[in-house]
Structures are given as structure tokens and as C-alpha cells.
């Protein structure tokens, strides 16, 4: 189990997190929700090893491989959808396997090989999601992953993610509790400090 204990963090005089505890169940999806600015993304950055809290500790992360969908897509603009996903995968994973998963996430063949800067916002979001889900990771952090997808696209991508995330330790940050129900996840609500 991954556990955050007594996490406190401030940005200048602004206290964002005040002695927060959070457990991520092994092999399950945990949904983290709460109002804007309550520190959900900050908390996820501690899990990803991108920041260190002012106080408290993160347990159970040693040796774990991580993957994430960030709030922004964070793609290499010059690379294709397949290229972006393959960048984070082992060389042995063939392009055809990546292309197949991208298609299952709703991308058409014409979208697979052109630079991602030429794709629409929704298509780029799908690439970012597939990149994280296909990565060999023990911990998956999804920060508002379905933002920008249309209703049908969202259902398609969520179905694919639920199938691929089964049995993986996942933190899903969202404002939409329907997403939590869809994943059958334990919901943790973070209050503003």
C-alpha cells in the first residue's frame, strides 16, 4: 500500500495542505476529489516524485515505476501519437501494438502518424491517456484525465481505461463523482486547508 502521512505544504504564506493522510489501496482505483485549490495536484506531485512536501512522508513508493496523465497533455509536439507513446515504453513494444491501443481509445488511422500538434484537443488528450496507461507502471496518477473529451468519446476512453487499469494501483483526481462510480472506486474528499 502507498501511504501519505501528515503531509503539509505551503506556497509562501498560502497553506495548501495541512497534515493530510491518504492511503492508496494496492491494485485498486482511489478517487481524490475536492474544491479547486485544495491541493489535489500538489499531493499527486509528491506521489510522482516531482516535489517534496514541507512536512510528512510518502511511504511505499520505493522502487515503484510511475506513470501519469497530467492536467496538461505534455506531449512532444513534433512526434506522432505513436511516437509519443513509444517514447515511454520499452523498445520491444512494437508500433503496431501502440497503434492498436490508440485506435481502441478512439483515434483514427490518419491521426496516428502525423505530429500531435496537428491533432485536436480531444485527440491529444487521448494520446496523453494512452501514453500513461500503456506505460509499465506500478502507480498510475490520472489528474482530471477526461477533461476536454466529448460525451461519447469520454465513455469510450473511460471504458478502455477501466479495462486497462484493472488490478493497478491508480489515483484518479476528478471533480466528477460519476467517474468515481464508473471505476467503482473509493472516494477521498480533500478539504481546503
Amino acid at each position, binding site marked *: 500500500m502507498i501511504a501519505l502521512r501528515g503531509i503539509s505544504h505551503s506556497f509562501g504564506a498560502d497553506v495548501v495542505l495541512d497534515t493530510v493522510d491518504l492511503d492508496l489501496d494496492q491494485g485498486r482505483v482511489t478517487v481524490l476529489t475536492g474544491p479547486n485549490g485544495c491541493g489535489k495536484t500538489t499531493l499527486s506531485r509528491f506521489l*510522482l*516524485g*516531482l516535489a517534496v512536501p514541507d512536512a510528512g512522508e510518502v511511504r511505499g513508493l520505493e522502487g515503484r*515505476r*510511475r*506513470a*501519469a496523465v*497530467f492536467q*496538461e497533455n*505534455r506531449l*512532444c509536439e*513534433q*512526434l506522432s501519437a505513436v*511516437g509519443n507513446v513509444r*517514447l*515511454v515504453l520499452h523498445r520491444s513494444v512494437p508500433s503496431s501494438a501502440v497503434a492498436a491501443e490508440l485506435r481502441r481509445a478512439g483515434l483514427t488511422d490518419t491521426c496516428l502518424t502525423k505530429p500531435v500538434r496537428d491533432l485536436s484537443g480531444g485527440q491529444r488528450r487521448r494520446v496523453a491517456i494512452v*501514453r500513461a496507461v500503456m*506505460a509499465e*507502471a506500478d502507480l498510475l496518477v490520472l489528474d482530471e484525465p477526461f477533461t476536454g473529451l466529448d460525451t461519447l468519446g469520454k465513455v469510450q476512453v473511460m471504458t478502455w481505461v477501466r479495462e486497462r487499469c484493472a488490478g493497478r494501483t491508480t489515483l484518479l483526481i476528478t471533480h466528477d463523482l460519476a467517474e468515481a462510480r464508473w471505476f467503482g472506486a473509493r472516494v477521498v474528499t480533500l478539504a481546503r486547508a
Partner: protein
Amino acid sequence: MTSISAAEGTATLARGAVRPLAVVAFWVVVWQVSALVVGHEVLLASPAKVVARLGELSLTADFWATVWTSFARIAGGFVAASVLGVLGAALAATSRVVDALVTPALAAVRSTPVVSFIILVLIWVSSDQLALVISFLMVLPIIYTNVLEGIRHRDRALLEVADVFGVPRLRRLPAVDLPAVLPFFTAACRTGVGLAWKSGIAAEVIGLAEGSIGERLYEAKILLSSADLFAWTAVIIAVSFGVEKLLVTVLRRTERRLA
């Protein structure tokens, strides 16, 4: 919507090609008129005389050997500065100690007059190696500073992605690092090539490097041959310009491939 017809496109292309030629022709006319007004070959050789002298020189094997000698030394200095500048910048980007020690030292090198270095280095090395060392010293701070700037301008968000997913350094280099750094390196090369030639030739003139363009310029001064001086200067400009264009074209193509 605006559309350009084939005829308009051709006319635009023609204007683009004619304009630089017209500018060159204008200044050649100004030069010719000035030479006629001065009326003394020693003070100002005419364009026709310089072209004729250049023609004579280019027919000799010694001319090409001289150009090659200077080219090899100056290009050697430039390449060495590029390699060390890139490596130094990469090191300074990861180590505050290296940054704190090297950056001010290279800023001092950049501000030092080239003749000070020429005289100093001439005490240490033979005149044959002087142009190589001087062009190296002049180009190194430019490559180092620009590449370091490029490294610092990399997309932080993408670097975080690479860290989180554990993307190996060799794979993140073409995907994340090079697209950000290459435009800075290209700009440094643009400035660096011209500077390498100017400082390298100055070093050859002062050090009297045997069989070099600098030595030919010095001989032109001794013999009061302004036609030779202009002819060799034209050679320097042409080679420097050609090398710069070739290098920038290759780098821009690489940039486009990565961008």
C-alpha cells in the same frame, strides 16, 4: 481569402533573386567610381583589377594550398570550440560549481580584445597553431553561452514527463533536449563562423603563419599591393560566408526534422 497566381509567384521569386544582385552591382559601381576618383592603384585597386588578380591567383596550386591551410586551422578551432562548448554547457547545466567557475571565466574571455590573446598565445605556441587556438578561444564562449541558454529553455513540463516515466537519457535527447537546444546552437554557429575567420586571420597576420592567408595579406601590405589585399579579403569573405551558409542550412534542416 488571398491567393497568389503563378505569374505573381514567379515575379516575387525574380524580385527576391534580383534585389541582392542589384545591391552588389550598386556597391561595385561605387567602388569603381571611387577607384577612378582616387586614381592610384596602391591606395585603392579597382574592382576589375581585383577580379583579374583573383583570377591569376586561383590558377596557381599555391593559392589553393594557402586557402586550405587557413581553412583547416580555423575550422579546427571552430570544431574544437563547438565540441567543448556543448560539453561544457551540458556540464554547467547540471553542476552549479561548474557554472559558477566556468561562466564568468568565459565571459572574461569574450570581453578580452583578440590581439591580447594573439600576443599572449604566440608566446606559448608556434605561429602555425596560433589561428587554431585563437579561433577556438573566440568561438568557445559563444557556443557555451548559447547552448547553456538553450538547455535552460527546455520545456520543464516535458522534462517532468521524462522523469516520471523514466525515459532513458539517450531517448529524451532527440525528443526533448535537441528541439529546444538546436536553435540556440545554430544562432551561435552563425556568429561563431564569422568570428572564427576574423580572429583566425588576424592571428595569422600577427603571427606570420607560414603558407597562410594571413601571411599573404601581410605580404600585400609590405608590397603595397592593394589588389592582392582586396583579392585575399574577397577569398576570406567568400569562404567564411560559404561555410556559414552550409552549416546553417544543415542545422536548420536538422531543426525542421526534429521540430
